[in-house]
């Protein structure tokens, strides 16, 4: 089942500074594939974080815009962008970014509560996600009592709570060892296999190779788009994903 299409058209962000304008991103154009992982790669300062902030509606562009199907995300008010994030986007961050004072279950229930789900619905959905990510026995633990891998799985579960169309993963394995990192990669493949768009932001070339599409940024510009045509067929197959992650097949440069 395919979901929404996330598109960026002539997307750009220029920051005003006393020493002159700083162009963080310029002329970025791409339609993100549904049911696939698109990796955004590039060195520090290449504009990856700026792109993520603009796509996710954390920030507003100075040029161009972001569309989710026909929804003009960048022209929405802050509250409306919050609503888009709540119902159609999910987020996984490098440093997990769980709310430290809430238990694993409460973290997963947070977006459900914000979306107005009642206690029963929240509990049912949280149970489902806790089971899916093997966290049922850790449900009532605070984040500091969970391992890094468990925290990232809680973050994944939270990202999926409201059944989003797009999941943004910002260096999701950056704080994990290689084994738990592979588990998270496998989980992201599953997420893409459900028809969701996964936007993976990383500077890790090895991690980016698990993507179906790879966008390379440099100095705030998109300099290459790599497609890996065989990748989509692997979606939803946890074993296949593991293999992908481990073999780290080289991508095909198309541009």
């Amino acid at each position: 089942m395919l979901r929404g299409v996330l598109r960026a058209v002539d997307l750009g962000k220029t920051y005003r500074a006393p020493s002159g304008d700083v162009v963080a991103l310029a002329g970025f154009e791409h339609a993100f594939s549904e049911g696939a992982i698109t990796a955004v790669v590039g060195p520090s300062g290449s504009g990856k974080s700026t792109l993520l902030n603009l796509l996710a509606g954390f920030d507003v562009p100075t040029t161009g815009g972001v569309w989710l199907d026909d929804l003009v995300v960048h022209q929405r008010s802050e509250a409306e962008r919050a609503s888009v994030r709540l119902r159609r986007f999910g987020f996984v961050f490098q440093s997990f970014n769980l709310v430290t004072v809430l238990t694993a279950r409460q973290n997963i229930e947070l977006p459900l509560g914000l979306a107005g789900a009642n206690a029963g619905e929240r509990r049912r959905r949280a149970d489902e996600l806790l089971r899916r990510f093997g966290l049922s026995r850790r449900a009532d633990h605070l984040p500091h009592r969970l391992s890094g891998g468990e925290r990232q799985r809680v973050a994944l579960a939270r990202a999926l709570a409201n059944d989003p169309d797009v999941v943004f993963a910002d260096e999701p394995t950056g704080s994990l060892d290689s084994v738990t990192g592979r588990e998270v990669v496998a989980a992201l493949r599953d997420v893409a296999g459900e028809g969701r768009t996964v936007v993976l932001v990383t500077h890790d070339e090895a991690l980016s190779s698990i993507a179906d599409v790879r966008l390379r940024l440099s100095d705030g510009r998109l300099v290459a788009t790599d497609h890996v045509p065989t990748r989509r067929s692997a979606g939803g197959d946890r074993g296949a994903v593991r293999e992908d992650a481990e073999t780290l097949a080289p991508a095909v440069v198309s541009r």
Partner: protein
Amino acid sequence: MVPSLATAALLRRPLRTFLTALGIAIAVGSTVVFLSLGEGLRQAFSQELSGVGPDLQVSFGDLQTSSFAEIPELPIAYAADLLADAERYGIVDLIPVLLHVRSGLSPGTAIVFQGLPAEADVASIYVDFTIAEGRALDAGDPGAMVAVVGPQTAERLQVGVGGTLRLNPRASFEVVGIGSSAGGLLDNSVLVPLSSLQAAIGVEDRVSFFVVEIAEASKANEVADAIMADYPELGVQTRAELLEVIERGLAISDVVRLGISAIALIVGAIAVANTMLMSVFERTREFGVVRAVGARPRFLFGLVLLESVVLSLIGAAVGVALGFLGAWVVNLVSLDLIALEVAAVTPRLVAFAVAVAAGMGLLAGLLPAGRAARVPIAVALARE
């Protein structure tokens, strides 16, 4: 979810939360004690005045200066003059009252004597007053050195029926009855026959004031005007005017005391605002995460405001308890000094204190809540 977030926020720095709540508690507590003084006096006066049967009080000149004058100024002859025209004025009853304060070495040993015609029905002036022990004054008492003592005076002076109260070297009264507590000033008075008190202090033809009951209470103002037209030297005050004068005085003192309390409350509010600002600053990243997953700015605004109000209300709850304690201490002292409970923590005072604390929490929370709502997500998430 929201309660979890708010509770966790307050418990994140327990000592800071405790100290802030303590600051509010002291501010609210001092406000309660300050305002309880007015409430206590208001209660004492309203109980006293509700016990005043007559509709008018007639004094010589201005009531406020004459009632408690050292030497009574109202010639008793006016009683006969007024009663002669009773029908025209609509007077039903007129009772002369002589007030005399026997000062003591300390305020605690002072005694307020009230001379009333022995045959007068005390209950027509003080409807709540009943005899707990012994007997009331009666028609056989004129000229007799007998007294009925208010309960607080009896307790303070440690006298019972059969005991003696000394007014001056020439006059002592035998206690024949103890009144039962009706609250108010009468509890602190000693009722004696008018003629006996007049003789004891040597003012045979003068009293402090007359209390007058009229046929139609609603015509109190007309009757007062009529008497003052006939006797310009007399001051006539209706009960409503009397209440108004007292209420105005209490209202002025309320404002003064509230003004003093406001300083404590403002300091408390600043403490809350400071605590909340620190809390918002420390939780910038958390707020960024909550915003990132889809919370609207107003969710965080409401969350911080809720925390601020909850913090203030916790302080207020402790403050009200402190206020009760403070008022109790004040009354302990005032009972000892002037035999009157001057402080009263009434439900409306508690409601006022809680409302003020809630309002203070709301106001103090506005700035931090605004900050929380405006946290830029990208900046907050990048923060370590």
